[in-house]
């Protein structure tokens, strides 16, 4: 194991995050806070409880997931795309570093940033709504799993993208809509049967459901299904990354 390389890449990525603290932390925390104010305090006070939880508190897990998903994808995709864009990736490809080490460092850093962000948003939420966390260990497990899984997806996007537009495309046009329609602001049990069935094809439903279960002990699907699906996505993304490394797709001619 080239531990110096892993530590260097990890530290490099975290330093980049600190340099862009406005964009990395303050911006997502501010926008999530606005959601709390608008949907939690202003509109939420006129909405009855959902599954026995006040609406303001109900949306907290979904909003955290929304930020964790988008930031994981965005951090990891940018982290690997930028050296490709500048050409400085030559150094990484010519270094005595294995693909596993590359993955550990880039995805590890992206996931770390998302986890920290998720915890900051969670702390911010407690200022606006009364919160309880019934299963804190499971909450952390889901947070970490989701951050790593979607950082892997971000890494894949960062390899696939051949321009900044594509880099923005997937988070904007796919991840955000999936998160909004995946039960961030509502329980899918509130939907008509057809839309509920369609929603079950949305992978984010399972992530949000499991995460919400860790807060309030109830979700749209069972804990086991949520876990199974989360591990399923993790395995799928690992398989895609393994294929990328095996073939050198967009990395080596």
């Amino acid at each position: 194991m080239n531990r110096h390389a892993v530590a260097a890449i990890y530290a490099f990525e975290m330093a980049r995050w600190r340099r862009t603290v406005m964009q990395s932390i303050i911006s997502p925390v501010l926008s999530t806070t606005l959601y709390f104010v608008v949907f939690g305090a202003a509109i939420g006070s006129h909405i009855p409880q959902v599954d026995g939880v006040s609406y303001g508190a109900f949306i907290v897990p979904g909003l955290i997931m929304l930020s964790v998903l988008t930031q994981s994808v965005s951090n990891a995709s940018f982290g690997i795309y930028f050296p490709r864009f500048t050409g400085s990736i030559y150094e990484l490809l010519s270094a005595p570093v294995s693909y596993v080490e590359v993955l550990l460092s880039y995805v590890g850093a992206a996931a770390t940033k998302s986890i920290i962000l998720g915890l900051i948003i969670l702390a911010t939420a407690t200022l606006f709504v009364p919160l309880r966390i019934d299963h804190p260990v499971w909450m952390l497990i889901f947070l970490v799993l989701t951050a790593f899984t979607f950082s892997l997806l971000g890494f894949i996007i960062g390899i696939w993208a051949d321009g900044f537009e594509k880099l923005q495309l997937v988070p904007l046009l796919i991840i955000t809509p999936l998160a909004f329609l995946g039960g961030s602001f509502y329980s899918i049990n509130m939907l008509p049967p057809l839309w509920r069935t369609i929603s079950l094809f949305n992978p984010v439903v399972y992530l949000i459901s499991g995460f919400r279960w860790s807060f309030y002990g109830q979700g749209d699907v069972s804990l086991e299904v949520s876990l199974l699906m989360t591990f399923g996505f993790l395995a799928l993304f690992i398989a895609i990354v393994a294929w990328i490394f095996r073939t050198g797709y967009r990395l080596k001619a």
Partner: protein
Amino acid sequence: MEAIISIRSISKTYATGFKALDQVDLDIRRGEIFALLGPNGAGKTTLISIVCGLVRANTGQVLVDGHDNVADYRAARAMIGLVPQELTTEAFESVWDTVSFSRRLFGKAPDPAHIEKVLKDLSLWDKRHSRVMTLSGGMKRRLLIAKALSHEPRILFLDEPTAGVDVALRAGMWDLVRSLRASGVTIILTTHYLEEAEEMADRIGVIDKGRIVLVEDKTALMRKLGRKQLILQLAQPLEEVPTALARYHLELANGGTELIYSYDDKGERGSLAELLQDLGRAQIVFRDLHTTQSSLEEIFVELIGTKR
């Protein structure tokens, strides 16, 4: 001399169908400065990229100090420093941070004293806190060299190392390259500045259309293919070369005021002393004389031209 890099039967055809390398065999000797010359698109950068692990070869094998650069890539790559042709640097990092990063990327523990030495050697010490994006092109070029030297490689690839670097700095870089060689580092450089190869290289390799056309000791190459000329400026113009001097194949130039004698070290056309004696006998008086020798550039152009 023992080879530190052995390239055997390397071929590379890109997805576009372009055949960049065709059955390349090449040995780089330990501790030498090897200049790889060739026109644009000849395969120089592809060959370097394959050795360094940036491009996958279709066939063949590269051994770096006995380590297969695919099967045993860690050991092979740890020995190599690469300075790429393009100025590909991070933008927002400081000079110090990015050079320190490179060292750790190659598996070496932080060593501030070594980083300081490298930056001072490359006249970048004053810029150590500057962001990379604020550096000039020449400074970025030196930064890339600093990054490549940060992990103390035993082999250094310099792909067009002095492109965009001013004359004074170029001379400084040549000194650095020589001092690296003196410390035992093997250096492989590609360059468009043939005087650079002529100045520094121990051996020259010429690649064209993906094939190694020639590998030769520089001095031997210059001797073998280099042409020398003796130019005599005559006191009185001649209308034609006297038949008594026919065996020298002399040429008249500048309206008969110059007599040119082309010769080589083999002395096939007679020695200079004999020529001067024969000129005296023919009562040809000259005011001045000087000699010229073909540069590596002229040899290179002639060589590539002949092969095409």
